[in-house]
């Protein structure tokens, strides 16, 4: 598959939205202005956990300039019903009360009321006049504390579901997962070496630059129009309709350009509130979050506690694995524990393994997806243990990974057997890389490697292409474009039709115009929406064959379409554009369409190499060199693949070294700003080198695998391994920030 020569695929055309983005013309949600539009302001809980005794909005409502005030009372009652959101599902009652608190606030930042006024300052001043009487309750923000029997309970009616068995008494643990293969206990007895450790990771945020924003316009006729920054317009439509209990078809969601999401812009936060404010005031309403709101009230990714154990034979074969994982769910059930359990041993062919996972509610914002959600935490644990195993066995850390790497036919602990995958090829690429083969010299320096995995999903996508009279194409699809997907989708259509990328004019449609398309998430867009575009192209070709047969007076079966998209039949060969023009002149105009819903994961594997230097006096880590290697299946637009690899890696470096939700004694966040929530700046990371491996995915016409998520998985582990090699200190807690690393090095020195 990889040997195929493509014309468009693998080239690097300028992205279709490039000019708009660099000239500032692209329209983001906060740029949307409607006549008579009001500004909304959301009043949020100052407490981590409290009963809402009463809310008095009278003074706010009487403030000049105020047009509407909403509280939980204005939200319809929704029962405990699960709604499928494509990538995961959600309990509507929880979704609704996360948008606007009902009887209780469960984290600082939880919305309790909102005001719409002629400007945001009036709205804010009025919101501050709302009198909320709270009865403050005990709170809990550490996962193991929240699991204790006497922990403050977030939900009185929540009982643990343990693989279908319901517990009797309420707790903060909605779900206990258990996966097993083989006989782990016995295998540990047979192991020659065993490594085991406990690990902790802090809550971290996606840190997208654009805060959540929405404009809602509720019409007299019951039609609701929404402009929003979302990763999925159709899921935003569904969630909004369900929370408001209005017919799905009454809601139109227009996805605006989006300034990053990384999984954090799938759940709705502001849409229902803006809609109700609009309904009450009869005017369009815009709400934008502040950065503090984003940190405190959107969806970060779980903090975790993990205990992981691996056993191996003297020849380096890993034979036994055991993991006990507890992840924050945040205020409501439904965290990332599932993928955590599935990913903990996903890179290694371990015959016997047992995994227990707990989803734990606590007084933090409800967690959300973040690039390979749940996988980075477990990789931090497992990939360090693999290094320790190698050291105990006197093996090279790369060799032990190569020896145990999963391949076609390996079975994961949660059941699935891998189709052809590319981990071995990625590790081979490590071995052959310039980075790996360049010795790292100098004091306080170390190199570390780690592998990573993310499923990559298929889900539903649609594409429609209208052929213009000159043979160019307007491509309509429904995937909000976060990483250049318009172009990578258009390129697949161009390839199949024998056109150039700029013959295609891609457009991300709203929910009234585009065919149903699931979220931009799960590394699925270039794979699945690309596949839909490919199929739409095939549909066009099929129609054109039939029409050309009439025109050329031959049978459609006689007409063939070449690799270059040209049609051959009745003794002639005609290119796509030429035939399209000819057909148009003959009175035929063409629309191709396709819907796809591939069910197979695309299985993205990667490996990374990190060189670092530690300042022994301060514990500060400098990343000297970094290489990210990933199996892309087939890189449609290599620059965008490289961009995904670099971006994911940098986010992983931030997660590893400095990022954390820092909680005060009262369980409120101390650092809800980009000043003190320390994401890496351009001065904190070197240029990330990339190596794209292409093993070809048999489930996609061009062999594409999703690439967006895997790159964030290895960095904390690779850096921890590098830090160990530089300092002889094992860091089992994230972030490995200067005070923590310094302290760990100190403790090690004094204990020696």
């Amino acid at each position, binding site marked *: 598959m990889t040997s195929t020569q493509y014309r468009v695929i693998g080239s690097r055309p300028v992205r279709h939205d490039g000019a708009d983005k660099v000239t500032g013309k692209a329209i983001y949600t906060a740029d949307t202005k409607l006549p008579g539009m009001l500004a909304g302001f959301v009043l949020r809980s100052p407490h981590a956990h409290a009963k809402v005794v009463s809310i008095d909005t009278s003074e706010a409502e009487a403030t000049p300039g105020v047009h509407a005030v909403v509280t939980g009372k204005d939200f319809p009652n929704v029962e405990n019903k699960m709604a499928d959101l494509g990538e995961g599902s959600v309990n509507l009652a929880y979704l609704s009360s996360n948008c606007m608190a009902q009887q209780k606030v469960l984290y600082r930042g939880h919305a309790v009321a909102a005001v719409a006024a002629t400007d945001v300052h009036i709205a804010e001043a009025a919101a501050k006049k709302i009198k909320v009487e709270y009865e403050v309750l005990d709170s809990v923000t550490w996962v193991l504390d929240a699991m204790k029997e006497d922990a403050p309970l977030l939900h009185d009616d929540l009982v643990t579901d343990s693989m279908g068995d319901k517990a009797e008494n309420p707790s903060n643990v909605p779900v206990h997962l258990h996966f097993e293969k083989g006989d782990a206990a016995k295998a540990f007895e047979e192991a020659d070496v065993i490594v085991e450790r406990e690990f902790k990771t802090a809550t971290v945020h996606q840190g997208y630059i654009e805060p959540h924003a929405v404009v809602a316009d509720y019409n007299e006729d019951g039609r609701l129009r929404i402009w929003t920054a979302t990763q999925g317009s159709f899921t935003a439509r569904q969630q909004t309709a369900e929370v408001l209990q209005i017919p799905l078809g009454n809601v139109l969601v227009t996805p605006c350009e989006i300034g990053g999401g990384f999984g954090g812009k799938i759940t709705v936060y502001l849409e229902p509130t803006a809609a109700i404010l609009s309904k009450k005031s009869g005017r369009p309403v815009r709400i934008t979050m502040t950065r503090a709101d984003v940190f405190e009230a959107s969806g970060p990714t779980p903090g975790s506690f993990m205990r992981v154990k691996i056993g191996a034979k003297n020849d380096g074969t890993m034979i036994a694995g055991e993991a006990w994982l507890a992840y924050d769910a945040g205020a409501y059930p439904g965290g990332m524990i599932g993928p955590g359990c599935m990913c903990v041993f996903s890179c290694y062919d371990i015959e016997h393994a047992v995994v227990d996972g707990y989803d734990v509610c606590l007084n933090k914002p409800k967690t959300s997806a973040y690039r390979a959600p749940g996988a980075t935490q477990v990789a931090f644990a497992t990939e360090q243990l693999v290094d320790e195993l190698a050291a105990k066995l006197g093996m090279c850390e790369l060799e032990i990974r190569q020896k145990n790497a999963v391949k076609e036919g390996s079975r994961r602990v949660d059941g699935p057997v891998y189709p052809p995958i590319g981990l071995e090829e990625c590790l081979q690429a490590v071995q052959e890389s310039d980075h790996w083969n360049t010795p790292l010299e100098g004091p306080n320096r170390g190199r570390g490697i780690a592998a990573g995995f993310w499923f990559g999903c298929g889900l539903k996508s649609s594409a429609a292409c209208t052929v213009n009279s000159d043979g160019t194409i307007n491509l309509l699809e429904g995937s909000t474009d976060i990483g250049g997907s318009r172009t990578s989708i258009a390129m697949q259509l161009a390839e199949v039709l024998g056109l150039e990328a700029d013959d295609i004019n891609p457009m991300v449609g709203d929910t009234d115009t585009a065919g149903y398309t699931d979220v931009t998430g799960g590394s699925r867009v270039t794979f699945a929406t690309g596949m839909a575009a490919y199929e739409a192209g095939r549909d066009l070709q099929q129609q054109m064959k039939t029409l050309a047969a009439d025109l050329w007076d031959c049978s459609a079966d006689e007409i063939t379409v070449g690799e270059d998209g040209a049609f051959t039949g009745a003794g002639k060969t005609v290119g796509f554009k030429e035939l399209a023009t000819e057909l148009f002149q003959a009175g035929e105009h063409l629309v191709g369409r396709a819907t796809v819903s591939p069910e197979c994961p695309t299985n993205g594997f990667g490996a990374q190499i990190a060189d670092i230097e530690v300042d022994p006096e*301060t514990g500060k880590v400098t990343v000297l060199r970094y290489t990210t290697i990933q199996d892309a299946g087939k890189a449609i637009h290599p620059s965008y693949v490289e961009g995904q690899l670099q971006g994911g890696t940098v986010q992983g470096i931030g997660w590893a070294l400095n990022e954390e939700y820092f909680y005060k004694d009262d369980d409120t966040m101390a650092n809800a700003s980009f000043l*003190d929530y320390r994401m890496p*700046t351009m001065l904190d990371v070197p240029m990330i080198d990339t190596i794209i491996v292409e093993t070809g995915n048999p489930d996609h016409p061009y062999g594409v695998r999703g690439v967006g998520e895997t790159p964030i998985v290895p960095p904390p582990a690779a850096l921890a391994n590098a830090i160990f090699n530089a300092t002889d200190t094992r860091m089992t807690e994230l972030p490995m920030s200067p*005070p923590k690393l*310094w302290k760990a090095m100190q403790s090690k020195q004094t204990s020696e």
Partner: protein
Amino acid sequence: MAPQSVSEVVAVLSEHGDRAKLLAGGTDIIVQLREGLREADVVVDIKKIAEVTSFKYCDENGLSLGAAVACYNLYEHPQLSKLYGALADSTHIIGGWQIQSRASVGGNLCNASPAADSIPALIALNATAVIAGPSGERSVAVEEFCTGPGRNVLENGELLVSLQIPAQGANCGSAYERFIPRNEMDIAVVGVGSWVKLADDGTIAEAKIGLGAVAATPLVAEAASASLIGKEPTEETFAAAGELAKQIATPISDMRGTDEYRTHLVGVLVKRTLTTAVERAQSS
């Protein structure tokens, strides 16, 4: 409003009391007003006043630095950046280019943040603050200027006009260094400014060390400074001074670091800034 003279400013301040706020570069005050951390009825721009926006150096009196002179003027100045190494170091790391082209040293001092980057440098360089008010002018040593986080000695009607920083002879050198977890966009976890004057035999004749972010106000490390006098500038001497400096640090634990870590950093940074200051003195 933007008065043309110091006396006009004094008049406005006297009239409005703390409902009037001065605006130099505005990089603190505009943010504080917008975030509701401070409130004002009148904002007085002082950048139209020549005394406050100019600076001059002479070999006898040293540097007279107008309170509103923006940071870049110092680190971009070929002569001053050499003479006042610590000030060049600190002005070069206050925010990025955009901030440095507005933010002033005077504003940094008046804002009185315990972690302000220029204050330990000013302390080390023995600067004095020249203050104008309803009852005329007075001078205050920089180490006595701040009285608590966000508070200073200025009384009703008073403003900072300039900073007087002694002339730097040959054999003088200074340096400022802060520790931050990233390489940009952070508030000092600890900041240290050090100044030394070397005797002809190469030993340390005079020294002064200023510390930031380890107490409610920036501090002078007196015992540490005194311990250097008459000593050879060696690593051991610097480390010993670092240990003494640590003794006066009373930092808090917060998201930027624990008290233990901050205290430790004092020792590290005293050593590092003294090393640089001596190198600069030796090469000047």
